[in-house]
C-alpha cells in the first residue's frame, strides 16, 4: 500500500514529510511501545506503529531502516525536540485511531506482520 493512501485511510496528519509519500510502498508493519521489540523483530522498510512519541522512537526507526513512523491516539513529538525531528530522514505521521483499530485496519488492507506471526494463514509466502 502506498504511504499516501495509508494517510488518507487513517485520517493521518503528517508531522514531518522528509520525502515524497507517493514513492513509499508499505508491505510490512509492526506495533509496540517497546523499543527492543522493534530492534529485535523488525524488517527493513516496515511501518513502525507506536504510542511512544519520543526522540528515541525516531532513532530506533532510523537504525532499523523503517519506511515511516506512525503515532497512534493522536500523539505528537513534544515541540522541544523539533531539531531532532528536522534531522529525521523518515516521514512521521499521527492518527487519532487507537493502536488496536489502526492495526486492524491496516491488516485488512493487506499489510503484513513484520514479526511474521501472521504466516499461519497467509497464502502468499
Amino acid at each position: 500500500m502506498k504511504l499516501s493512501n495509508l494517510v488518507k485511510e487513517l485520517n493521518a496528519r503528517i508531522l514531518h514529510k522528509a520525502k515524497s509519500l507517493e514513492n513509499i510502498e508499505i508491505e510490512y508493519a509492526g506495533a509496540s511501545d517497546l523499543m527492543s521489540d522493534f530492534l529485535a523483530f523488525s524488517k527493513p522498510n516496515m511501518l513502525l506503529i507506536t504510542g511512544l512519541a519520543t526522540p528515541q522512537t525516531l532513532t530506533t526507526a532510523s537504525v532499523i531502516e523503517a519506511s515511516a513512523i506512525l503515532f497512534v491516539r493522536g500523539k505528537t513529538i513534544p515541540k522541544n525536540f523539533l531539531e531532532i525531528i528536522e534531522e529525521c530522514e523518515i516521514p512521521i505521521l499521527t492518527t487519532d485511531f487507537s493502536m488496536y483499530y489502526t492495526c486492524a485496519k491496516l491488516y485488512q488492507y493487506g499489510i503484513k506482520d513484520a514479526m511474521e506471526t501472521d504466516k499461519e494463514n497467509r497464502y502468499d509466502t
Partner: protein
Amino acid sequence: MTPESNKLLEKISQFFSNIRIGEIMTSPAIVVTPETSIKQVKNIMKIKKISGLPVVKRGLKLTGIISIEDIIKVLENGKLEDSVERWMTKDVKILYEENTLSDFMSISQKYKFGRYPVINNENKVIGIITKYDVISWLFEKLGTMYIHDDRRKKILEREEYTSRLTGELLDNKKISFDFDIDYTEIQRIGTGATKLKSFLKKKGIDEKLIRKVSISTYEAEANVVIHSESYGKIFCWDFEDSIRLLIKDYGKGIENVEMAMQEGFSTASEEVRSQGFGAGMGLPNMKRFSDKMTIISEVGKGVIIEMLFYK
C-alpha cells in the same frame, strides 16, 4: 610529528622541564644482545611495533642500538642472518635517569633520533624514552591536573585494547569512528548509533550489515545511558573483513552477566520503562545481530561490550 606539534610539545614541556627522565621513560626497555640475528630483530620490531632496540651485553650494559634504518641497510647490502653486532650503531646518544625533560628536549632537537636509551650510573640500560613517552606522560599529567577526572585518565592511559574475541590489537590510532555517549538524557539514546549508521553508509558498506551494526550499537548505547550511571564511548573499526565495535562505560557494572544475558531480565525503573526501554532484550539482541560478542564487566568499574561483524 609536524613542526607545529613539535612546537606545542616544547611549550607544554617547559612547565615540566625539571621532571626526571626516570619518571617518564618506558621501563624496562625491550633489548637484544649483539649475537642476535637481524632476522630476529626484525620480528621483534614487527610483533612489538617498535622501531629500535638498545643492544646490551651481560648485565644490561649498553653497547649499541639497532633501528629500522639499520635494518634497511641490511636489506640493501647484507643478509638477514647477520648478527646485530655487525650493523648496530655504536655511538649511542643516551640519557641518564636523573636527566630532566628539558635535557630530553635539547638532545632530541640536536640529534633528531626517535629513541634514547636511559641508563643509570653503572651504564646499565633501565629504560627507553621516545617522544611518544613524553606525550603520553604529559597527557596523563594534564588529565589529572586540569581535568580532575580519573575516568578520563583511564582512557588516555589505555592506548590500545586487545580483542577478547580474536586476540588482535585494536589500536586507538586506527579507529574509524568514535562517539561520546551523553548519559544525562534518556532522549539522546540512539544519537551515536544513527551517527555511526550514516558514517558506515558513506563508506559504502553493505546495507544489511549496517543495519545489524546500528541496531547492536543502539542497544549498547541505551544500556550505558539507562543503567551505567556513567558516560561512555563508542569505538568502531572498519577492517577489511569485519567491523569491530567496542562500547564502554565506567559505571556500576553488571553484577551477574549470565542473568543479564537472559531474555526478559531487566533492572530498569518504571520511569525508564515508560520511555520504551526495559524489556530485557538489549543484550540478547546484540548477541543475535553480531557474529561474535563478549561482555567484560567489573562491578563498580564499568562494562565493555565487544562485538564483531563479518563482512
